[in-house]
């Protein structure tokens, strides 16, 4: 049984149809990437999965439970969470308070301790900066905080929306390394990315979206070959 299955999902903003009936499945332990140009419907898809935007029609099933149109606050405790586009850390809260909020729904003491040590092990810089306001961190550190905060709820499925956006190449590499490390720790990941080459390097599978539809899908290998082909024809780099 897939961990997440999405069945003819539609998202509308007024008259604008952002996602036009897409189907996909995510299996336990996978890294799946959603690719596509700006406005292809990738972020809308992720936001609809976690209830930040309403689902116009279709069905979202997570771990066997229908979570279509669940309020966002119900999903983190079930094990699915999103690190949103643009990081959106709480700038007026300290690093430690941000992480504490990430673990808001976790009441089990042992699980909480585990979450703190995992995040501080992955990001020693956050431990160093724990008393600092998140708004004063650099972009890369904020991205680490955004991912760390999402990890505090010990998710089984983590959705990452453009984790490399606006970051220096060296930091981008760190973020992608981190994604592989998380998979080895048993987290299933869906990554929305503009950085196609790097996304396909770490992903197992991918879906390509365009105009609100999934236009192609396959293993990362297949997609990167198709992409090279396309790049060759179009003269893009």
């Amino acid at each position: 049984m897939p961990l997440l299955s999405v069945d003819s999902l539609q998202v509308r903003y007024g008259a604008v149809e952002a996602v036009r009936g897409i189907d996909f499945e995510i299996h336990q332990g996978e890294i799946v990437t959603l690719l596509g140009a700006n406005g292809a419907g990738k972020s809308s898809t992720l936001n609809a999965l976690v209830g930040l935007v309403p689902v116009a029609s279709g069905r979202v099933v997570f771990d066997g439970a229908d979570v279509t149109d669940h309020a966002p606050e119900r999903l983190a405790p079930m094990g699915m969470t999103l690190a949103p586009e643009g990081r959106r850390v709480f700038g007026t809260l300290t690093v430690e308070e941000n992480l504490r909020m990430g673990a808001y729904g976790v009441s089990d003491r042992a699980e909480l301790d585990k979450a703190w040590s995992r995040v501080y092990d992955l990001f020693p810089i956050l431990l160093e900066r724990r008393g600092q306001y998140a708004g004063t961190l650099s972009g890369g550190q904020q991205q680490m905080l955004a991912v760390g905060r999402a990890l505090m709820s010990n998710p089984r499925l983590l959705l990452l929306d453009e984790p490399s956006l606006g970051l220096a190449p060296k930091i981008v590499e760190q973020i992608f390394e981190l994604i592989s490390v998380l998979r080895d720790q048993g987290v299933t990941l869906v990554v929305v990315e503009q950085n196609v080459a790097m996304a396909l390097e770490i992903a197992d599978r991918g879906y390509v979206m365009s105009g609100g539809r999934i236009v192609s899908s396959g293993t990362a290998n297949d997609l990167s070959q198709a992409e090279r082909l396309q790049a060759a024809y179009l003269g893009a780099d």
Partner: protein
Amino acid sequence: MDLFLQQSANALALGGTYALLALGLAVVFSIMGLINFAHGELMTIAGYVLMYCGMAGLPFVVSVPLAISASMVAAVLMERIAFRPVRNGSGATMLITSFAVAMILQVLFQNFISARSQAVLLPAFLSDSFTIGGLVIGVNKIVAIVATVIMLIFLDRFMNHQKTGIAMRAAAEDFAVARLMGIRANTVIAGAFALSGLLAGVAAVLWVSQRASVDPLMGFTPVLKAFIAAILGGLGSLRGAVAGGFTLGFIEVYLAAFLPSELQEFRDPIGLGIVVLLLLFRPNGLVPSNVLKAVKV
């Protein structure tokens, strides 16, 4: 000099009450963008509870917590009944709703209690006064200052150390992301209203202690002042609400004390003029909110 110190103590007492009220408005505004003009009616409710407790002969130590609890319960009910249905409406929709709630409550007070001002029995010690180093300070003023300080310390501890308080700050900054963390929208908003009810209740006790009476429109003036204080401090900013409350208190008391008698009838316009002047130099308020910024034109 003595007069100046004397008036400063009065200003602290009045400013503290404004600060508590402005904080109540700011807590709710920062989280849901609602300026709750029915905040004053929470004060009135607490005032009437004090009145009935006095009539029933209950001791002050019992009637004060009862009055404050009544205001908190009323605040939570207000949210549940009136504001939750319009939560996703525009700021204007919520503002008009709050006016409606205020008016409905005022009419209920007028029809079921009395349209006229009612006396509130207060313990005699409140009207005593101390002489400290040549200054005569009323017990009610000292109580107001001490209560304000205690409330500010409590609020600071709550907002910075309690999980629920931190969640309120998070929700004030980015509600959608706060919900992603598993922070329940209903819990945070109900909590904000309970907190604003607590602040209004304490402010009401202090307000009534100075006046020993309560009437259906009692809450209107102080809440209008608190609104001015909140704007002056920086709407949505908690530190700003405190700064604005005390600043307004000092402006009012000093003008009343030191303005020449022929200008006294212009006291309010002069006071508001000073507020406008301050806002000209600091359009986002004295301690602006980090989240909300006015566009400087």
